[in-house]
């Protein structure tokens, strides 16, 4: 069953600016690890930010779990966003806070104003954060400040934070392109394991085609705001790559 349906999505950054997404459609199903590939500037980050409306699409349709995302008001959007985990290329952690506080911050969508001011979280949340930190291998770094960790470790904090949300969907914007190849694989492996275990579908921007082939079961290819390819990973061949990358990759 499709959990996320995107139809004819269009987006631009300013009224008179160029159109960045020119009518993109695709469907993500329950167990998908779904990749979006394409050259730099193709619109991958824009597309993924339209799903949770960090960027407002100009037209089109986005249905997540049956909810029409584009019709939500601010309040309803916030409630919906707390079920969408996001992992970023540059981790987007709160550098001056501890690893623990960063992971707990994943619960903010569920926490009221007063409790978030004083950083009060339930014991259940703290228990869950501890479990997740152990799962991502950071049990020895709980009280360190986030900016004292290595890149790979920071992304693990990012993963734990996203999973803290108990998400129904994970959005990843190039989660490994700030990491070296070995750590990249470890991080992707970790995400795959956790996503399988928690049964969360993943939508992932990735520019490393090799990684996409290795970890993802479905791929769409973007170029200059158009979808150039859509299909299971096995069907992605040299000619489709050449089309997506406009002969960049040979």
């Amino acid at each position, binding site marked *: 069953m499709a959990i996320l349906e995107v139809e004819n999505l269009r987006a631009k950054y300013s009224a008179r600016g160029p159109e960045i997404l020119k009518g993109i459609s695709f469907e993500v199903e329950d167990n998908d690890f779904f990749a979006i590939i394409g050259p730099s500037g193709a619109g991958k980050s824009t597309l993924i930010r339209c799903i949770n409306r*960090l960027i407002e699409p100009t037209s089109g349709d986005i249905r997540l779990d049956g909810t029409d995302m584009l019709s939500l008001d601010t309040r309803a959007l916030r409630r919906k966003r*707390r079920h969408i985990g*996001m992992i*970023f290329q540059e981790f987007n952690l709160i550098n001056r806070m501890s690893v623990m506080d960063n992971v707990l911050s994943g619960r*903010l969508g569920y926490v009221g104003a007063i409790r*978030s001011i004083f950083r009060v979280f339930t014991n259940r949340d703290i228990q869950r954060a501890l479990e997740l930190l152990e799962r991502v291998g950071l049990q020895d770094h709980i009280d360190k400040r986030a900016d004292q960790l290595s890149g790979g470790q920071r992304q693990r904090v990012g993963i734990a934070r996203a999973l803290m*949300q108990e998400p129904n969907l994970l959005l990843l914007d190039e989660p490994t392109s700030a990491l070296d190849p070995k750590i990249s694989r470890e991080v992707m492996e970790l995400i795959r394991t956790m996503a399988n275990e928690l049964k969360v579908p993943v939508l992932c921007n990735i520019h490393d085609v090799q990684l996409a082939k290795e970890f993802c079961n479905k791929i769409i290819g973007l170029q200059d705001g158009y979808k150039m390819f859509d299909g299971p990973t096995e069907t992605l061949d040299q000619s489709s790559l050449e089309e997506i990358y406009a002969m960049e990759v040979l």
Partner: protein
Amino acid sequence: MQDQATPLTLDDVVRLRRRKKGVQFGIFAVLIGLVLWSVQATVIDDTDWQRIGTLADIGESVAHFIGVDFALIPSLLGPTIETFMIACIGTLLGLVFCVPMIWFGALNVTPFKPVTYPIARVAMTLSRSIHEIVWALIFVSAVGLGAFAGILAIAARSLGFIAKMSAEAIENIDHKPVEAIRAMGGSNLQVMIYAILPQVLPVILGIVIFEWEINIRRSSVLGLVGAGGLGLVFFRQMNTFNYPGVTTVIIAILMLILIGEVVSHYSRKALI
């Protein structure tokens, strides 16, 4: 020009350099002329030279101030503490009033840009462009003589600078954590507390300490217009022609400022 790539001859280069030097010299000459003219207008024409008298007279006037009035020292303790407290409480009060101004005055968080942003910017400029003595005069006439007027004057004078610098710090934050908190369904308040404040709090604290140090200087003259502290004592010594007393007060002010500088230096260092 560069595309044509015609190589410059030695003559060209020499001529260009000479012209550049000529322009520089011209500007320099105009500047010197302006300085001379303003000295002529403000110092030479405007000073009552008769009253200054000979060099010996000047020396004699200055010599009045040599010496310390030890009898005055015990009665200085109260005003010194008062000056210090005016600076401390005034800075804190300024900080409290700053909070909405910082919020309104930072482009990336101001709640309703076309209204709140200009309000904050005007308030900041007003606060900073009115001298502390003028603020003190205003508050003395509003709440009467004494330290309270001084506190209000210090608060009013320093909030503009604190707010301006802090708003700038907020405008220059790293937006990546902001995006993360928004993406997980965080509210504006949560974005402020989790993504923005941790980045700017150390900066703002540094600005406040810096301003506190300057406020010690400011509060030590406020007494001149009746707003409490050492300035009042200074004024009295001056009026009764007790020149060693004046010197004593100046020394007290200097010591207070020195303490402020030392505290400010070390605490700001600790923040980094």
